[in-house]
């Protein structure tokens, strides 16, 4: 503290930080997230009750000042009524939930044996395998989805192989179908499922498995009676990490899906960018958030359960 006389403002700041350190350290991340994560949802909720107008910004204000200085609150439910009236939105929500559900199940089926294999591998190999799971996650998500266009399209890699082997006589249409969307989702979200499953399976007590086999249980019985039930928290956590973001997924249906691939993320996008109807886009987002409340709570509980298990 040599600069005590030379730079009183700095010393003052340092002293202030010393005295209020705890509050500051808590306050900085807390306020940042309140301002840029929590409050935005309130803004979206507010705008979902306003009317679209051709202006900047393109929505009406909820609060109007009458001539006498009184305040008038105008809540406009027409955006929500519109979501119910036009079957497009209900169909899009329903189809997003369906796609998210089936792709989560598919991801779980692909991920479980991989996570199990890695968890049972010798420790040195385990780290290499884990690295191999995480590595694709580090390369561009957009470009990995793009790679599937080349693989699945009419004159793409899969069709070229099938044609040259004589398995089909003409190319199979795979791109711009829901099948391509499922492949893209399973592919990009696989690490999110494997990692929580692995963390769960690697903690599995070997004594339990040995006890089971000593008592004469066949490996399959041991798996279904011990391993599978004990890995349920990992399965829930992984499933929610896939299900929740897939509900609002935009890039995968936009690049791999066809015109009849209906997903709510795509609807919100075009409502905002093509129709420039901010209030309806906000209402779409609010309904999506409401749908996601239960899955998010499930995720929180599963994570809390696995945190208790590890300590």
């Amino acid at each position, binding site marked *: 503290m040599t600069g005590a006389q030379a730079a009183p403002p700095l010393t003052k700041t340092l002293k202030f930080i010393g005295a209020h350190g*705890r509050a500051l*350290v*808590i306050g*900085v*991340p*807390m306020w*940042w*997230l309140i301002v840029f*994560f*929590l409050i*935005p949802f309130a803004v*979206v909720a507010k*705008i979902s009750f306003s009317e679209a107008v051709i202006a900047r*910004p393109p929505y009406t204000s909820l609060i109007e000042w009458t001539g006498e200085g009184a305040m008038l609150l105008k809540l406009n439910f027409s955006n929500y009524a519109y979501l119910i009236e036009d079957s497009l939105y209900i169909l899009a929500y329903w189809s997003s939930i369906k796609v998210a559900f089936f792709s989560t199940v598919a991801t779980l089926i*692909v991920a479980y*044996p*991989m996570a199990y*294999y*890695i968890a*049972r591998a010798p420790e040195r190999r385990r780290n290499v395998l884990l*690295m*191999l*799971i995480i*590595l*694709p996650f*580090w*390369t*561009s998500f*957009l*470009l*990995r989805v*793009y*790679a599937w266009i*080349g693989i699945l*399209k009419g*004159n*793409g*890699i899969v069709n070229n192989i099938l044609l040259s082997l004589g398995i089909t006589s003409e190319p199979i249409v795979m791109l711009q179908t829901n099948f391509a969307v499922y492949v893209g989702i399973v*592919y990009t979200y*696989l690490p999110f499922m494997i990692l929580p499953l692995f963390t769960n399976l690697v903690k599995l007590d*070997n004594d339990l498995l040995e006890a089971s086999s000593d008592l004469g249980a066949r*490996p399959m019985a041991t798996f279904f009676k011990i391993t599978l039930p004990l890995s349920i928290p990992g399965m829930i956590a992984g499933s929610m*990490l896939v299900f*929740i*973001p897939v509900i*609002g997924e*935009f*890039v995968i249906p*936009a*690049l791999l899906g066809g015109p009849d691939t209906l997903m709510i*993320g795509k609807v*919100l996008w075009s409502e*905002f960018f093509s129709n420039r109807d901010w209030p309806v*886009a906000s209402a779409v987002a609010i309904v*999506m958030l409401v749908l*996601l409340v239960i899955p*998010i709570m499930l*995720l929180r509980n599963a994570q809390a359960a696995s*945190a208790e298990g590890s*300590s």
Partner: protein
Amino acid sequence: MKKKPWFLSIAAVLGFTFLYAPIVSLIVFSFNESKLVTVWSGFSTKWYGKLLEDPQILGAAWISLKIAFVSASLALVFGTLAALVLTRFGRFFGKNLLGGMVTAPLVMPEVITGLSLLLLFVAMESAFGWPAGRGLLTIIIAHTTFCMAYVAIVVQSRLVDMDESLEEAALDLGAKPARVFFDVTLPVIAPALISGWLLSFTLSLDDLVIASFVSGPGASTLPMVIFSKVRLGVSPDINALATIIIVIVALGVAIASTQMKPARDS
């Protein structure tokens, strides 16, 4: 442990093939001479040359790198503070709220995050005139917010694993909390900080949806340019770009993992 069932090994091999085949195909066809990306017609590096002459892609790449560097650095500071507060500060008012706000951005659909931030920026601009317009600054704020959640998770798990008695010993010996953090905690969690920063950097570099919402005219990021090209169909120069990104990432991860080895043993 008994020997593994054969179908488990087969499932694992198929799974890893599934993960890597698309990446390998991107790289292989970036050296294809033909413009038809998936029909092999001979080795060529001409698409790399074409890429380096494309001012739109180079400009967007430079914008994205600047955004990613600033966002990752800010996210590192805020995310580390959040992790520290959640693991070392005991109970305080709003702890559950902070915990929730740190987890939620990880799963929040990007269209919702993007839309909500844009509407916030517009409302703030009409209320206090800041941020004036949208561009680099608004993208940086948005990226910092979702990246700090990733940093917080990575650092938090490292802090939970760390032996707290080290910090307690330093405190007992009379060190101030800030000094304990910089002299004891920081060196131990350094690997987590490095991977948190790298993860934030790549996530920011990769983001299309949120940036599309909050960016303004003149601030097109690399994913925005790639997306508009890719929507029109496959193009070999995008394969070349993907290969360059994959090589850089693989090198970065390899370097980071050799740097982290000694720390893990300690």
